[in-house]
């Protein structure tokens, strides 16, 4: 990060400052020390549970992260709330139906994966906010503000989930135990839920975990366009201004969140598929 061109002090001083002032600010924020000394100082802060203060706002980074995280969590949950059922349903339908429906769903998922978020965000805002006046175009707050960004954010996750679900289920449908289940005279719905879906769930949970983990680290474009006050925008502004304490804080918080989500996913695997063991039990 420090190897990147750009100097936080130059951003702090505006357009006009004397060399003495620049040196003084560099000293006051500790940027005059060597890299090793700066790193040790930061580790010392971390050990005390402190992420430091922003160079610009002087605000405590940890406080800001805890203020913004609930917004990011809300947006991620809402996006997944839309993406998971819809994605799985679409994938299921595409796997089971050949012909027109399959092709239609394929078209939807491929566009969902390839259309950039900034484009879909703007189009959706123009339609639902400006023309239909159903939702506010921007802001952070209750569910009214959440719908549009959550919908936009859910599109790529929905598309990738649908594709994975379709591929997995198509494979499962060719397996002998499905034929057996059908031959036993089970109803189609029972076969779908107990035999097909249950066996397809592991890769689906993996995709959900990955998407959810990345959404929890912020969705910069969606947050920026809809003015949503989340971790993504906070991190991005930190990077643009070279606000090192903010960048470090966000990266550390993001890493912790990612590890936790991965852990939860692993635990869920065990409950979904008892063959996956939590402990290194007997062989």
């Amino acid at each position, binding site marked *: 990060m420090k190897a990147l061109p750009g100097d936080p002090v130059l951003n702090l001083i505006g357009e006009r400052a004397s060399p003495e002032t620049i040196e003084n600010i560099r000293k006051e924020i500790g940027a005059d020390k060597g890299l090793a000394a700066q790193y040790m100082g930061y580790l010392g802060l971390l050990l005390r549970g402190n992420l430091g203060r922003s160079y610009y*706002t002087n605000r405590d980074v940890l406080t800001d992260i805890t203020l913004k995280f609930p917004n990011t969590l809300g947006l991620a949950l809402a996006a997944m709330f839309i993406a998971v059922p819809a994605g799985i349903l679409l994938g299921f*339908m595409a796997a089971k139906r050949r012909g027109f429906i399959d092709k239609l769903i394929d078209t939807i998922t491929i566009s969902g994966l390839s259309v950039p978020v900034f484009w879909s965000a703007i189009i959706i*805002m123009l339609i639902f*906010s400006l023309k239909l006046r159903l939702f506010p175009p921007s802001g*952070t707050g209750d569910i*009214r503000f959440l719908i549009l960004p959550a919908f936009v954010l859910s599109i790529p996750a929905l598309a990738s989930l649908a594709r994975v679900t379709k591929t997995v289920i198509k494979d499962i449908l060719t397996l002998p135990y499905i034929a057996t289940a059908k031959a036993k005279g089970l109803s189609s719905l029972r076969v779908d839920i107990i035999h097909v879906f249950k066996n397809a769930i592991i890769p689906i949970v993996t995709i959900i975990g990955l998407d959810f983990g990345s959404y929890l680290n912020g969705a910069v474009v969606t947050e920026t366009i809809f003015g949503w006050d989340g971790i993504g925008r906070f991190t991005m502004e930190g990077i643009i201004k*070279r606000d090192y304490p903010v960048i470090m804080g966000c990266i550390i918080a993001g890493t912790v969140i990612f590890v936790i989500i991965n852990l939860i996913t692993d635990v869920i695997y065990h409950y979904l598929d008892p063959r996956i063991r939590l402990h290194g039990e007997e062989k």
Partner: protein
Amino acid sequence: MNSLIGDAFRTLIPAVLLVIALSCSSSSRLEGHIYYRLNVNPSTLDPALITDVSGASIAAKLFNGLVKLNGDLEVIPDIAERWEVAKDGLKYRFFIRRGVTFHNGRKVNAMDFKFSFERVLNPKTRSPNTWVFDRVQGAKKFIEGKDREVSGFKIINDYAFEIILDRPFSPFLNMLTMTAAYVVPKEEVEREGYDFPSEPVGSGPFILKSWLPNRELLLKVNDRYFDRKPLIRGIVYRIIPEDLTAITEFELGNIDVIYLPASAYSTFKNDKSWSRNLISFKGLNTYYLGMNTSRPPFDNINLRRAISLAIDREKILRTLYEGRGRLAAGPVPDLLRKWEIKETLGYNPKEAKEIIKREGASGLKINMHVTADQEVVDLAEVVQSFLSEAGMNVNIKQLEWSAYKESINKGEPDMFWLSWWADYPDAENFLFPLFHSSNFGAAGNRTRYSNREVDLLIERGQHSINERERNSYYKRAEELIIRDTPWVFFWHRTDYLVRQPWIKDYTMYPIYTIDKGTEVGIKKGADH
């Protein structure tokens, strides 16, 4: 499967309807409040630290200084009801109004000004604005820690405050209108510590009620304000980073006044219902193409002049910029220039080509650095094509703002695109920081232009207390700078805002601190 889908739809439809019903509920605007848009979160509202436009325009509504500017860019009383300047131009004595109170109820006195100004100079404050006061007697010693107070800030009594300068300095009174010269209450600064920049206490017509970073700021009227009281109950600043989103909010009536981004200008101008509500204002700024005069190829004055001759600025302004500006004759904005400039370099591609050939610079490769802003990149490409016609190869390098600033401060590119905006309305603000040889790099002179005669003329202007004499120095300095052409002088930008029909008496001023929010009003019975 079908029943599964059917069930899903049966649950989803009522849920969607509920959400739509919720969202169509009445707008959540606060009555009597004006809604503005900011594109970025202000970094700080501590007047000692502010360097950005959004911070300065909000701080102007929360704080006061000794003096302020009016719409005609004249210095008028603020907390000081009058002042006297000694004949030698060294002593400024300010007489402070009685009964001015901070938002916490305490009366403002001379001690507060001494504290606030010394605070700007104190290294612990980390203020980038020390230059505002560094010409005050004893300031340097105080900064270096040799003195415990600044001898040039003198308390005569509770309601009289004196500032003594090292040497006469003509722009000083103008500089006292800047945010760095606002008064802050010592007890609140000390009590709040790190939180003062986000929970500031001043004496202005508005009080900061809440600030949700990256979301919005809410200002409420200060009922005890000593001067003209606002006509509105409060101001809401909504932070909306994306231009298109902000325009959508404006069209929905959720924002009252909005600065028009270039991409939206022609749409609003050509729309009959909006064009009536367009407000234009001439900015105190100069946009320029800077050339690094400290090394080849642009240490050669002839080549610099050739570059200026090769670019049809008038055409670029008319077409690419849709006429949003006034062509610049020199670095000093038309609104601040009190003299006439006779000789300017026009567009003469033939002559440019000849000079470039004569100087042996045909086919020469030049590095041009620009920010990654699309408007700037478009312009850079036009400049590139003009210069290629004249026989020079321009290599454009886009950098994001932090990296760009570092590169131009270090003097890395041969050529760069930048603008300078007035801190205070004085021609000196467009000469000293930008062309004096003591200000290379971050202090403003990024072309590393050095001319002993220009240095002397600017210094004489600064120290002269006679206005006519001062203007004659500045005129001569500007003429020399135009002759030496360290910049291609492009234009002074004119900006546009659009307001809602229910907003009355909104004026945009060329200096952001002039608007204290006390003039704008909302028409009665306005339905929005």
